[in-house]
């Protein structure tokens, strides 16, 4: 399994005004694998993901995609490379319906006119593939959906495209037991189909159930990025809470990983 990462970040720094949120972060994502990104509240997981998605510009650092150094200066750049993100706050428009949300910013057109029929067909197919529960109509406004249904729409929006990397920021936070199992199953399925998947989660059981690798952020530094099979539950918990665990983790707080 020693293939090249499809997406690789090196030395990422990111500050919001005077507050530095990410320090010299390195992060690699491999095709066909689920990489879990863990860390305490405020560790910088969502910020890192937004940098990958082009939502926040990075202050410094290098961004490689499929081995090439790239410059991502906006959400369109990331989407064009095949990086799809399900954001923690979902980022759906309440006043638009399911289909409109799924194609937002990338509408199908025939000439000048929106091709609603094709979009609806594709959306229906994708949602059926995710075995979506009882959505009354695809033309329903997102505001009338339950939290879990909204989450599913956000996920469907990400897997609709022929993406190479799918990043899910706490996708199961609002979901019940059955839906959570479904999403985890989907995460696994995507990776088995050759996609690189990043899963952010606070639930260690989920992380160990589906991930191949685990990356632990501690106070904006990458404490360690390790194979799931080579670590234990408690080691990861220590990495999350203290930034180090035995051999693993931050040595002197300079972001070096084992």
């Amino acid at each position, binding site marked *: 399994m020693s293939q090249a990462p499809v997406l690789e970040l090196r030395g990422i720094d990111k500050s919001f005004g005077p507050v530095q949120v990410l320090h010299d972060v390195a992060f690699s994502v491999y095709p066909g694998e689920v990489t879990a990104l863990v860390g305490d509240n405020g560790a910088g997981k969502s910020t890192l993901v937004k940098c990958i998605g082009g939502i926040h510009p990075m202050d410094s650092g290098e961004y490689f995609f499929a081995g090439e150094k790239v410059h991502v200066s906006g959400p369109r750049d990331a989407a064009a490379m095949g990086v799809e993100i399900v954001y923690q706050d979902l980022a759906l428009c309440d*006043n638009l319906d399911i289909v409109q949300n799924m194609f*937002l910013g990338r509408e199908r057109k025939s000439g000048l006119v929106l091709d609603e029929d094709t979009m609806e067909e594709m959306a229906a197919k994708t949602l059926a593939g995710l075995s979506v529960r009882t959505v009354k109509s695809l033309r329903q406004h997102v505001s009338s959906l339950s939290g879990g249904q909204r989450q599913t729409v956000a996920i469907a929006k990400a897997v609709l495209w022929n993406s190479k990397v799918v990043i899910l920021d706490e996708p199961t936070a609002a979901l019940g037991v059955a839906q959570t199992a479904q999403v985890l199953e989907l995460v696994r399925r995507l990776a088995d189909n050759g996609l690189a998947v990043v899963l952010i989660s606070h639930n260690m059981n989920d992380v160990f159930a589906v991930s191949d690798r685990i990356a632990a952020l501690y106070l904006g530094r990458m404490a360690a990025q390790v194979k799931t099979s080579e670590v234990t539950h408690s080691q990861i918990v220590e990495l999350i809470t203290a930034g180090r665990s035995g051999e693993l983790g931050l040595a002197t707080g300079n972001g070096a990983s084992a």
Partner: protein
Amino acid sequence: MTTTTSPQKTGSPAIGSQVRDYFERVRGGDLGALPAVIGLVVLCAVFASLSPSFLSPINFANLFTQGAGVTVIAMGLVFVLLLGEIDLSAGFASGVCAAVMAVLLTNEGWPWYLSVLAAMVTGVLIGLVLGVLVAKLGIPSFVVTLAAFLAFQGVALILLDEGTNISIRDETILAVANSNLPPLLGWAVLVVGVLIYAGIQLTQMRRRLGRGLLADSFAVIAVRVGALAVVSGVAVYVLNLERSRNPALISLSGVPIVVPVILVLLIVWTFALHRTAYGRHVYAVGGNAEAARRAGINVDRIRISAFVICSFMASIGGIIAASRANSVDPNTGGSTVLLFAVGAAVIGGTSLFGGKGRVLDALLGGAVVAVVINGMGLMGYSASVKYVVTGAVLLLSAGVDALSRKRASASGRR
């Protein structure tokens, strides 16, 4: 896969279930055009019973020319309101554009088409400045356009040499609000319009059914087309009645030219809002600007474009007002014009909170406003009463908007 149902997606729902859906939406706070339609019916009934001349053909025609300017401005305002912004300067922007046209037309002797073009370009430039100030500098639109509201009054005074009144003598410009289509042409436009509408609806239904998607049933389409045909048929019929006091001297009948002008604007902007990616992005920015940004939409550009469209439509509104008054003075576009225009958009169902509204709303609301202005005029109310009623109408419509929004958030629709 687990035992879950995929969304139902083929065939046509029964008309009963569509009616039920509609009532459910209304109860959930999504009033749509309902307040405007009810308001229109009630107001017409009240004014008709209080003042017999309200229902006369000549007054019916007056409604259209009286309401046209405000309605056109309101149509532009819908774009700004959809983003949750406001343009308080649209009224005086229309005045400035009208003044530009009048100066060029009457004082400089330009041909009408160049003067109109110049007025429209002025509108676009005004919108560009307002939009850039709001989108790029981040000044709240309320403040930017309130400042512009004051400044444009001054600009209009300067253009009109500190308050002179410039009269319009150009036949073409005067025709816009003062002439009518030949009666036969009115019928022809009606028939062609209804047929095209029916054709679009039917091909859309067949295309969707052919692809196995949920489509409106034939009955629903028939009701829609029938309603359009009846309402517009009655309107054309009444407008084609002779309404001259002295038909032997001059005959006066036919659909006022502003009506097809407004219909063209309605179709163009409705198409832009509902059938193009641009329109989709306007709704998205109004609904959740951050989500739109993350979807790669250039939010600033959408914001600026909305102000440009609004001021552009204001310029057309100004031209119509100038045509109707046969002149431009520093008060053109002033006084109650803006309040009526905002009121028209909001009464029609466009939300002041952004994300919800249609260009058609402005037309329906504009009709309500026209009936109010016209009815009060017929009953001979003084300016003081009109001001109070204007304020009350705007407040009432904003209140309905806020309440329906509250209701909608309680029922999880918004």
